[in-house]
């Protein structure tokens, strides 16, 4: 012990007189280890604590405080008591000592064993002996932390102090200016309010001392060293101000005053604070201020140009209304909600009678917001507004005015999101059911498409709420919608009608099945009448059919409807196959699209899934096979590439999503059809037994191209489903893709091959398959006069993509192969475009919807691997082949996420600027389209190359290609967003140069030039 004592004395000596700060930590370690007790430390400090030199005393206290901070948890109750008394006493000492005393007290307040009564005594001495605002920032923060610590652990004791605690706090923070400390002070104030400390007679003082910071106008310094945001302060202060209804009498006048401010942000803050505080108030607090609050809120919503202020105003109104709605009424007092809503109605209602004028919309929004606050409010407002609107609709005869009225009405009918209506409540609209329906149905037959559209939306709003449309009304609605879908010229109205039909059909399927579907069916199968008067021309007949097909798919929102509509579409396809009706190619394609949409809609329904697998797929496949075997004779639409491509997504949606087990069954049947000619899947078995769909022979393309349907089935299966006979299938596909001359066939075969390889489990089998095909690809590409180079190249491209997506080790070999083809005379350009194919999602295979193995960030990985090779290749390539490299590079860059582009671009920028000079328009366009979004998002990347960029872009504004001119002007406009000091020097030069494209011969170019020059004019000018 003696040795320890000497050691301790030594440490104290070195800290106090030797001024070695590190010794405090050593001492603390000693205390923590039990080497010496705190009491021994005090004894050792003895002389420094009693020294007549304040700095020495300060040093002594500092050491003790720092040790206490480290080991406050290990102190005994007795020690704490002695130390506290000592520290309290030290508060009266010299001012240089105070900071250290506060640190020590802070450590003591964290002691778990702080004896009862000490908290109060610490506070009393603090409030009595320390003038907080004359301390430094860190010391003030220390005081606040002492308060916070004690509030956390000794709430009951502090409450025993009564209002004195609040008074002490108010005095302590009065005049605080540092945002860091304000956050702490607001925290204490929140604790006082939310934990119900007694405010006594100091309510107003507490309000004054906090509300003087409202509205917060603190902007953190540029590098933001303390990480305090304006938002944080605002929210914290708001929580204080809105913390108690007892502040209401002071806060509400303040808010009304600040709402008059010219500063946008203080308006916003006031409105948001109003919304927050009203939530905790009752009508008693609000009553007196309601008229002025309403007139301020109304003024903001009526006059503002800012959407933020508007929406803040509306939510304040909602909050006020909700508060009044919840208040319990005294028997003698008036209903304050009623009075308030009367006020709102009085000021807004008459604007609804002037549908041409500006204020109709703000008034509508205010009324709708108030109505959305509570059931009672919505009842009252509906009762006042709906009859008024019904009357106004009849008084105004112009279509534009009527349209506005119907749109306003729709807003009142639309059930608010997150609706508060309880089941028991009667819908306030029920009483107006009949006149509303009458109005909507009469508006539906008006001549103005815009009015019709508004009416269609209102009809949907009515129909989606229970009880507002009767059975007859729904039938009538279905008839009206059918008419609009079939006859309306205006595309907007027509699509609104389709959308409405879709949402109403989900709720009322029978009405649509019996009324709309038959009418659509009739329209699809009616032949273009020969020279009949008043009939549409063949052209519009065709459009009508397409529209009907589309409508069929949109109303199939209910499984029972899908079973009605799908047979009609299948029938249409089979009719077109037999050639008995004049279906145009375009119509057959739309039929396929509709089927696909229905399949998408049916994703969740098992019933529909079964239907698709058992009926739709066999029928479609049967039709396609029959059509392909027909040969000769009239051209059959079902052998057309476009139709087959449109069938592909039907198959892949069905196999990818609908019912896994059935999909596996379907896939195996489809496979045996393609590999063995087994026709058991097909419904109408009138097909010659001998045929092989995957064998290439002269003029065999109608059969072989069906491989795209095979691809759609087998490549979209979930990974859990195993494809039988993969080996044989893959080798047949490889053969077909390398030998067939028909482009659609060999591309589809290559895609199918790739799709399977992508999902094939890794292992020897896969390795041997790949080895075989890589060998074939290499030999196929090596000789320039090989007849199948094109086919082999396509296979290479797709297989590279398949392997790249799953991070297969072989993918680099293949992509290197592609890179080497960039200098190829025949395939160079194709190879460059191939990089776009590698990077972009393809629609029918190798995407996530097809359950392909797509690794995250494969694009970034590929970019990092390939970009250096491209740059190197570019530098070595002969002049005439350089453009392929630039094109490939810009394809890759274009597909990268924005964030990666921004980090990678600076290093590649010189090359891209080079690419802008490349004479190939394609390269120019793709480079510039890659730069444009970056200029819009983060123009600062370009700052260092601004000069070059400006001259290159200006050069391109005279390009012979219109698209290049347009987009280079767009880039020049985007550059005005750079910091002013960077671009301002170029202003006058740009204004002169941009005057030239103002006279371009193409209007589209002139339009961009006007925009760009306008922005450059505003640059550096007042009022921008």
């Amino acid at each position, binding site marked *: 012990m003696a040795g320890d004592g000497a050691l301790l004395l030594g440490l104290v000596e070195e800290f106090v007189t030797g001024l070695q700060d590190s010794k405090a930590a050593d001492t603390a370690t000693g205390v923590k280890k039990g080497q010496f007790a705190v009491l021994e430390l005090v004894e050792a400090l003895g002389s420094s604590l009693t020294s007549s030199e304040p700095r020495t005393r300060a040093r002594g206290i500092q050491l003790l405080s720092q040790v206490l901070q480290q080991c406050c948890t290990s102190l005994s109750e007795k020690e704490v008591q002695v130390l506290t008394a000592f520290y309290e006493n030290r508060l009266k000492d010299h001012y240089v000592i105070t900071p250290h005393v506060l640190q020590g007290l802070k450590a003591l307040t964290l002691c778990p064993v702080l004896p009862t009564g000490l908290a109060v005594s610490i506070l009393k001495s603090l409030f009595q002996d320390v003038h907080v605002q004359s301390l430094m920032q860190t010391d003030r923060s220390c005081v606040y932390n002492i308060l916070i610590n004690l509030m956390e652990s000794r709430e009951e004791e502090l409450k025993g102090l009564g209002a004195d605690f609040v008074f002490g706090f108010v005095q302590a923070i009065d005049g605080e200016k540092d945002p860091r400390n304000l956050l702490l002070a607001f925290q204490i104030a929140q604790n006082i309010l939310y934990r119900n400390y007694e405010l006594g007679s100091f309510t107003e003082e507490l309000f004054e001392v906090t509300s003087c910071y409202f509205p917060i106008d603190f902007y953190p310094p540029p590098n933001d060293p303390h990480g305090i945001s304006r938002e944080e302060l605002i929210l914290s202060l708001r929580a204080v101000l809105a913390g108690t209804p007892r502040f209401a009498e002071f806060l509400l006048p303040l808010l009304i005053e600040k709402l008059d401010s010219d500063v946008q942000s203080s308006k916003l803050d006031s409105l948001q604070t109003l919304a927050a505080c009203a939530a905790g108030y009752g009508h008693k607090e609000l009553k007196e201020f309601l008229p002025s609050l309403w007139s301020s809120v109304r003024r903001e919503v*009526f006059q503002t140009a800012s959407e933020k202020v508007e929406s803040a105003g509306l939510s304040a109104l909602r909050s006020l209304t909700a508060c009044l709605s919840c208040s319990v009424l005294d028997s003698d007092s008036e209903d304050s909600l009623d009075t308030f809503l009367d006020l709102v109605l009085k000021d807004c209602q008459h604007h609804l009678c002037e549908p041409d*004028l500006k204020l109709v919309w703000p008034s509508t929004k205010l009324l709708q917001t108030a109505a959305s606050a509570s059931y009672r409010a919505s009842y009252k407002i509906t009762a006042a507004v709906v009859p008024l609107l019904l009357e106004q609709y009849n008084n105004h005869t112009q279509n534009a005015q009527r349209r506005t009225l119907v749109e306003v009405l729709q807003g009142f009918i639309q059930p608010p999101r997150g609706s508060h209506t309880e089941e028991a409540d009667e819908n306030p609209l029920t009483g107006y059911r009949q006149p509303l329906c009458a109005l909507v149905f009469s508006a539906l037959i008006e001549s103005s498409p815009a009015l019709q559209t508004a009416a269609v939306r209102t009809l949907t709003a009515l129909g989606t709420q229970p009880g507002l449309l009767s059975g007859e009304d729904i039938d009538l609605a279905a008839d009206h919608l059918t008419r609009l879908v079939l006859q309306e010229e205006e595309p907007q109205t027509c699509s609104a009608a389709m959308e409405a039909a879709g949402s109403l059909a989900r709720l009322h399927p029978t009405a649509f099945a019996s009324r709309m579907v038959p009418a659509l069916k009739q329209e699809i199968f009616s032949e273009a009448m020969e020279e009949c008067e008043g009939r549409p021309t063949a052209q519009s007949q065709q459009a009508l059919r397409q529209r009907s097909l589309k409508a069929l798919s949109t109303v199939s929102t209910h499984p029972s409807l899908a079973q009605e509509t799908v047979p009609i579409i299948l029938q249409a396809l089979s009719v077109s196959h037999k050639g008995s009706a004049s279906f145009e190619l375009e119509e057959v394609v739309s039929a396929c699209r509709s089927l696909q949409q229905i399949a998408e809609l049916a994703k969740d329904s098992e019933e529909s899934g079964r239907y698709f697998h058992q009926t739709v797929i066999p029928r479609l496949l049967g039709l396609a096979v029959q059509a392909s075997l027909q040969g000769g004779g009239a051209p059959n639409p079902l052998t057309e590439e476009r139709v087959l491509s449109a069938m592909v997504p039907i198959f892949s949606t069905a196999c990818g999503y609908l019912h896994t087990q059935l999909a596996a069954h379907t896939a195996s049947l489809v496979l045996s059809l393609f590999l063995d000619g087994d026709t058991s899947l097909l419904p109408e078995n009138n097909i010659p037994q001998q045929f092989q769909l995957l064998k290439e022979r002269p003029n065999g393309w109608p059969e072989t191209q069906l491989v795209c349907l095979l691809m759609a089935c087998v490549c979209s299966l979930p990974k859990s489903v195993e494809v039988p006979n993969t080996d044989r299938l893959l080798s047949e596909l490889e053969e077909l893709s390398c030998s067939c001359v028909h482009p659609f066939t060999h591309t589809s075969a290559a895609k199918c091959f790739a799709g399977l390889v992508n999902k094939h489990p890794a292992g020897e089998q896969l390795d041997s398959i790949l080895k075989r095909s890589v060998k074939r690809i290499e030999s196929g590409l090596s000789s320039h006069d090989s007849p199948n180079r094109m086919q082999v190249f396509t296979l290479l491209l797709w297989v590279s993509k398949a392997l790249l997506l799953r991070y297969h080790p072989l993918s680099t070999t293949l992509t290197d192969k592609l890179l080497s083809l960039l200098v190829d005379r025949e395939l160079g350009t194709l190879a460059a475009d191939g990089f776009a194919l590698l990077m972009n999602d393809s629609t029918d295979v190798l995407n996530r919807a097809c359950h392909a193995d797509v690794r995250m960030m494969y694009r970034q990985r590929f970019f990092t691997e390939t970009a250096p090779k491209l740059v190197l290749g570019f530098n070595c390539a002969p002049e005439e082949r350089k453009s392929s490299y630039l094109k490939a590079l810009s394809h890759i860059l274009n597909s990268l996420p924005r964030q990666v582009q921004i980090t990678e671009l600076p290093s590649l920028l010189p090359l891209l600027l080079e690419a802008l000079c490349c004479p190939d328009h394609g390269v120019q366009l793709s480079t510039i389209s890659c730069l444009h979004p970056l200029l819009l998002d983060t123009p600062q990347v370009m700052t260092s190359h601004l000069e070059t960029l400006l001259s290159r872009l200006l050069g391109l504004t005279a390009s012979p290609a219109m698209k290049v001119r347009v987009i280079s002007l767009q880039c020049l406009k985007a550059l005005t967003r750079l910091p002013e000091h960077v671009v301002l020097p170029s202003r006058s030069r740009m204004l002169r140069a941009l005057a030239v494209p103002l006279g371009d*011969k193409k209007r589209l170019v002139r339009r961009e030039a006007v925009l760009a*020059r306008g922005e450059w004019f505003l640059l550096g000018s*007042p009022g*921008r």
Partner: protein
Amino acid sequence: MEGGTRLENANPLIFQRSGERQLTTEEEDEEFADPIDDREIFDILLTINDPEHPLSLEELNVVEQVRVRVSDNDSTVSVEFTPTIPHCSMATLIGLSIKVKLLRSLPERFKIDVHITPGAHASEQAVNKQLGDKERVAAALENSHLLEVVNQCLSSRT
């Protein structure tokens, strides 16, 4: 916009916007030369903001396509604008904004004439005279306060 102050015309008539110009096949054809027509000039003007309201001149019907006349061959443009009320104190400012926007947006060869629709404003002649005087327009734009308001009318609202 000041919180407490009253606007001269707080609740003006609002007109429907004409919508985007339909793209024609000629406009997409590289070879075809599109002449500058009335609609094109109107498209330049319709986005100008009103100095008082958060609305465009088109929505307030201050500019209309029928009151725009352009001759590409003679290089002349004539625009008539209609203030919302006959005593509108902003008429000169609106006219100035239109004039400046056209000066910035048209090739130099054009002669630009901006005036008030006859009979639409109390001090029509005085305003027209101001707008027609090249030197007064130039002098007005030297005034940085005026330029600020004009630029605010011409900047795109985001």
